[in-house]
């Protein structure tokens, strides 16, 4: 039995190596792409505002898309080489996060005013959010870390948020290592997750972000230099400060779901109101100006008045990750 079983096993191994090797060669010669050729189209012309977006192919939304600027109804590609899933830009520096050529790895690059990458890094997870402070000093990236077989419980998914020095393009801090304060006392738990940084437009050291733990999604305010954050209130995800720094647009979770409504809160009082967009939006909203939000539903880019009145309006087709370009 031993020798017969052994012979059959050897024959099977040979057959598997031939078939498996053959299939890999066939796949290697076949088509594969991680970047789409799609390009966005302008659906409306906003008053004196230029918007940077990343093109999306609605049938394969996870493919990297080119970076375009939409201005006065005209769509222009910024660089032949720049392609991402998430883009942000301010004051001569940008962040481009996307899937690596392998299809299972993710990379980010920091690029300059000429859209040339000055620094690239491997991402430890799936691109989620990107921001650059208005003065171009700091950058922030959030990635989803999931599928680590080792990171089974207690968190089904986790996020990591990195702070970047935009001049060198290198990572300077990981938000998970900041000290957290809640109600005047130190606050810590095993399932802390940070996501969605927004910088104060007038003081880039000051930022807001979301701290998730248990069923809570706290709005935190922090200091980059001080390496600390403090909890302000619950129920705020992906905050985004208005250009005048007085309001924060955010995702408000519909209880016990993974669906969100866009809300706007007053920084002074922390009271909030919903905007007119009725659909669930999973995006870190951007401010076109002090009265208008711009955001994506994953396929197209829309605007909506921040005050709660009016209605959502289509701005750009086949685009996500809108960035209002200010001078």
């Amino acid at each position: 039995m031993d020798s017969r079983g052994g012979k059959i096993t050897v024959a099977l191994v040979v057959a598997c190596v031939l078939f498996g090797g053959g299939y890999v060669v066939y796949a290697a010669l076949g088509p594969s792409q991680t970047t789409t050729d799609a390009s966005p189209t302008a659906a409306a012309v906003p008053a004196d505002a230029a918007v940077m977006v990343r093109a999306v192919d609605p049938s394969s939304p996870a493919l990297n898309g080119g970076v375009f600027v939409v201005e006065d109804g005209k769509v222009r590609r910024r660089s032949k080489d720049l392609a991402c899933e998430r883009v942000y830009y301010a004051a001569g520096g940008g962040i481009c996060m996307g899937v690596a050529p392998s299809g299972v790895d993710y990379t980010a690059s920091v690029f300059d005013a000429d859209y040339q990458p000055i620094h690239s890094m491997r991402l430890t997870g799936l691109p989620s959010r990107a921001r650059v402070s208005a003065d171009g000093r700091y950058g922030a990236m959030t990635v989803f870390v999931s599928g680590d077989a080792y990171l089974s419980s207690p968190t089904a998914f986790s996020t990591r948020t990195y702070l970047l020095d935009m001049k060198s393009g290198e990572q300077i801090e990981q938000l998970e290592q900041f000290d957290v304060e809640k109600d005047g006392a130190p606050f810590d738990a095993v399932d802390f997750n940070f996501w969605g940084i927004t910088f104060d437009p007038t003081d880039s050291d000051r930022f807001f972000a979301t701290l998730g733990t248990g069923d809570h999604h706290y709005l935190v305010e922090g200091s980059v230099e001080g390496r600390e954050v403090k909890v302000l209130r619950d129920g705020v995800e992906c905050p985004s400060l208005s250009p005048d720094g007085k309001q924060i647009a955010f995702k408000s979770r519909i209880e016990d779901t993974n669906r969100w409504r866009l809300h706007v809160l007053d920084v002074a009082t922390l009271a909030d109101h919903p905007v007119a967009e009725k659909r669930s939006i999973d995006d870190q909203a951007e401010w076109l100006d002090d009265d208008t939000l711009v955001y994506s539903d994953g396929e197209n880019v829309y605007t909506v008045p921040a005050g709660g009145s009016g209605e959502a309006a289509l701005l750009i087709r086949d685009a996500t990750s809108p960035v209002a370009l200010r001078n």
Partner: protein
Amino acid sequence: MYQVEASKALLKPRLWRSRTARLRVPRNVIMLGAVSLLTDISSEMVATVLPMYLIFSLGASPLVFGAIDGTYRGAAALVQVLSGFTSDRWRRHKEVAGLGYGLSALGKVALVAAGNTVGGIGAIVAVDRVGKGIRTAPRDALISLSSAKDKLATSFGVHRAMDSVGAMLGPLIAFGILFLAPARFDAVFVVSTLFAVLGLAVLILNVEGKPRRAPREGAPPQLRAALALLKDRSFAPLLLAAAGLSIASVSDALIYVGLQRTIDFEPAVFPLLYVMTAISFMALAIPVGQLADRVGKVPVLLAGHALLFIVYAVLLMTSVGYLALAVCLVALGGYFAATEGVMTALAGAVLPERLQASGIGILITVVSLGRLVSSVAFGALWFAIGLQSAVLVFGASLALAMALSAPLLLRAQRTAADG
């Protein structure tokens, strides 16, 4: 008894005797190791790329993946006890294990054929987990029944080392394929299926279903007999000790989270933590198993748990250099090498031949429940009193658990030697 074994050994084919003579590991254990190695390559290949496949090719959100991943982790526990008892009752360890390996292989085939919906993948992941739950206890029983009682720890060490080689190779092979054929997940799934089929084939063709210590006579065991193990004078103390030790040990996942929080290292270094731990485990599993057979399983088990104190100490340090990190990870690998396999080997020595799989199934379930309690408790403590204090509490609990379990384990080992 000795003469019977010796004459049987003479009947074995010479080839295998010479090849395995140095380690003196039964051929069946090597073959079961090969089955696990191939199966682990297969499942780790898929585990490595599945989240990206879901998100990248199917457009699922990471939250959906979290749900798929978390839903079925608990399912395996109950299955283990049932499959263990069933394989003892039918005296068909190989066939029941084969069913588990077969289910996982079938899951891989389904992935190639129909893995293009998020729901379909959820079902496939569930089938895979159930398959793993079914095969573990009868497989470990086969390893135990294939080995002489004084060589059990070496056998489990060899099996676990081979198993972890597979777990290391899987991601490497998956990334290698995607390097050659970017974003072609189908190629990864096809090759993974082939490894799963090969693993099943090696089990069917090369593993002896009735090894040397397998019971051949007597009535098949009743469920009552399996349940009586919970009160068995040698196995019950072992279960109690295993439960206590697993509750007092911080799970590796939480240790990594803690290290990440404590140590300021480049994010790119993070995956290397697992790799270093796995290499340490792989290198130490066999020598530690041999040591346990020579000096006794209980001292090695306790020394293995003591290695956790090094890990805890590093978690308590305010600034950790790369040297301390390396020491910590080597210690963590050593802890794994000296605990799970050695504990199973001790169970194999303590348990009667006719209830090997039942007992091992119960042990695995008790240990995984203990780990669950440990994780929940550690998370709650971390929240209540902070990471450092939680580590201190767990350090003290581990010392206590070791002190209490030492006499229990020694009693288990002594009665095993008597019987």
